[in-house]
């Protein structure tokens, strides 16, 4: 299974996501990137991410994304 970091890198290859703890504040992901990421996560992990989970705080770093996925039933 592809790690979250690899999916992020596919969406925005120009950024070093490992160097950031807050992708939103650091300008690495905008709202449209978030929707692209949701679609990629859903496709890759075969999961449906509910609308209530699509909030900036769930996308601020890899740990937050993983926790959101855990809530959706995806476990590493």
């Amino acid at each position: 299974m592809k790690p979250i970091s690899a999916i992020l890198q596919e969406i925005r290859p120009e950024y070093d996501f490992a160097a950031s703890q807050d992708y939103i504040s650091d300008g690495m992901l905008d709202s449209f990137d978030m929707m692209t990421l949701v679609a990629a996560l859903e496709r890759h992990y075969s999961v449906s991410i509910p609308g209530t989970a699509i909030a900036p705080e769930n996308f601020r770093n890899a740990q937050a994304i993983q926790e959101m996925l855990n809530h959706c039933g995806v476990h590493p």
Partner: protein
Amino acid sequence: MLPVQTTQQVFEGMLRAKSGPDFCTNFYPVRQKLEAWVAHNALAFQQGGETTFFFRRDRNFWHLFYCAPSIQALQRDLCTLEELQTERVVADVLGTPEALEAWLPMLESAGLRRYKRLARMGRPAREIAAAVADGVALATRHDAGAIVALLEKAFDPFAKQLPSLEEIEAAAGGSEILLLKRGGALAGLLFFETRGVTSTLRFWAVAQEFRGSCVGSALIRHYLAGQRGVQRFVLWADGDDRVLIEKYRHYHYAEDGVVDYVLANDLITG
């Protein structure tokens, strides 16, 4: 529609729609901007069936935003939205052209027409040299009036979301507007927003009487050369203006496949 009095009202409205199976929205408010709109009484809302609609006042028209639990609910609720018959309204819908082709007929059936297609263009960080002594300076709050006047002359307010006087004053205070003056007159400006590693060029304009005199190139070179630590530059350009697109390509921007369809109702399109 009713005025929005607290940001909490906005989040509650969004949350109502988010509980649906197929949440859809064109509303991605940044908290700081949202607070400013509420403080200036520029935001209103309307609960239309299952969809929460937000309206942001801009000069003499409204920007329409929706938060709907599903596409079907949005279509149904848009068709009964009274404001589309009585107010001048524009709405922005973002996505890839392929994804939006499924959406646009639905929005058009509710009375919104395609008004403008904006293309997102991106540029990786890349060395560029500013001209020596190019005369470019940062705007101050005192320049805000002249900046508004140039922006309103250079851009279509329905297609580009023009900043208010207060936003311009705040951006000038935050060193995010570059100016070039000639003989005391505002010859050109470049308005940008840098957040972390991304910088967005919001407006780049040269006054009619100063076109062809390298004002624009001095501004953009100064801007690109001055954004230390930025890894990605983005902007939204009129996708049908090939001359403009070519101009941005000259500075190594390229279309990245994301578009923003600006839709307008009949009270605007006539």
